[in-house]
């Protein structure tokens, strides 16, 4: 029944807010080390889909599996799955009262019950990975958006997740800061991290994604490797959407 090649399996996710059906049965599988980028018009349920995966939003129907363990309906075990499935948000959501290093180590201390010394060492290591070690003692308000987002990536990494969900990680950033965050994400993807990314950064999608999923109106319209999906989509709707970004995704031969 189970296929070990898949880290994450998402099966027929349905979600409604009131009468508004945001997700209408979304399914896909994620292989280890894969980067999947979700594209599509705003309001088509991409962010909701990510939140359904780690149960920050509870779907009405459908199941999510991490390897052979069911994430949906897991009760208190959800804490374990959330450690395994990291998340990075559009607005960073750093803890305002904690310095960068405390932001990264707090869950190591409180959730993983690590001893303070190892937690600090690990937190500093993760900050180094995202180029923020020199800012360890600064508070969120003292960081630029790009720096804050890199700290939040370090915070997610510190839990040693198997998958990281990125919910529009650069949408709140100007182009320069976007680039510094995307650099970190590229490095992560190359290091073999499994990543699900909701993003409008077509350049990133084109160069980093193994698969692109185009969503609209709560459904997956089309999915495939960047070459196919960005340059030769099967559906008119996909072609129309990616066509808007043609200048960004030009193949440089």
């Amino acid at each position, binding site marked *: 029944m189970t296929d070990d090649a898949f880290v994450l399996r998402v099966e027929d996710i349905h979600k409604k807010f009131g009468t508004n059906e945001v997700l209408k049965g979304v399914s896909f599988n994620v292989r280890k080390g894969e980067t999947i980028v979700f594209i599509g018009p705003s309001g088509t349920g991409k962010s909701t889909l990510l939140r359904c995966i*780690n149960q*920050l939003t509870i779907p009405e129907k459908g199941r999510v599996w991490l390897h052979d363990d069911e994430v949906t309906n897991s009760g*208190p075990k959800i*804490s*374990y799955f*959330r*450690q395994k499935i*990291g*998340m990075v*948000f559009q*607005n960073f*959501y*750093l*803890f*305002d*009262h904690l310095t960068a290093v405390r932001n990264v180590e*707090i*869950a190591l201390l*409180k*959730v993983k019950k690590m001893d303070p010394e190892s937690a600090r060492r690990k937190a500093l290591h993760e900050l180094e990975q995202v180029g923020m070690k020199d800012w360890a003692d600064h*508070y*969120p*308000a*003292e960081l630029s958006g790009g720096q804050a987002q890199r700290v*939040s990536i370090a*915070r*997610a990494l510190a*839990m040693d997740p198997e998958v990281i969900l990125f919910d529009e990680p650069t949408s709140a950033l100007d182009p320069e800061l976007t680039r510094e965050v995307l650099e970190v994400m590229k490095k992560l993807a190359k290091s073999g991290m499994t990543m699900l990314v909701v993003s409008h950064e077509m350049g990133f999608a084109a160069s980093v994604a193994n698969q692109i999923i185009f969503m609209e109106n709560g459904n997956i319209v089309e999915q495939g490797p960047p070459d196919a999906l960005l340059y030769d989509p099967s559906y008119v709707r996909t072609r129309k959407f990616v066509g808007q970004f043609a200048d960004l995704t030009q193949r440089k031969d």
Partner: protein
Amino acid sequence: MEPAGFITDILIPALSQGLVVTLQLIVLSAPFGLLLGIGISLGRQYGGKTLSNFCKLYVIFIKGCPLLLLLFILYFGLPSIGITLTAFAASVIGFILCNAAYNSEYIRGAILSVKDGQTIAAQALGMTKWQVIREVILPQALRRAIPGLSNEFIYLIKYSSLAYMLTVIELSGAGKLVATKYFAYNEVFIAVGIVYLALVTFTTVAVHYLEKRVAVPGMIH
């Protein structure tokens, strides 16, 4: 005319004794008033429907009840249902109940001001609801609530004088006794007033220091 040595031999010893009682009332009431206030605000914000409504009702009840009346109920009323409190205990309990209700309002407001996203981020890291409250929400909410809480503490210093109405000889009461005995109302009450002023000023300075100590860049003001 008051006798020679009135201030050193009579006034200062009497007020000192009263001051000690006032300080005891405050020191016993304030920490529990804060803790209960935190509990009520959390119950109201995060409790189930019943607990939340209970906390809401509690605050409405305390806000609507004159503190003196509350003290009278505790001291004179409770014995009829078999609960007898000393005047001091009744005062402390009354102050805690009152202080907590108002504190809870300041804390609740501060909880609401903590950005929602941080709760989501904390949950996404695997924190339980209680861990989110303890590690993320309360540390920020309490910092933001300091100005309101300190105001309430200053009120407590002053309404602790109501304990005199239950026969607790605290600062005001001690002053009243001396003033009546020696017909030295102005001198005594001005002296008592100066002591309260000193207590409040000390508190204000201490709170200012505390605020600076726990300040986080970009978080307050």
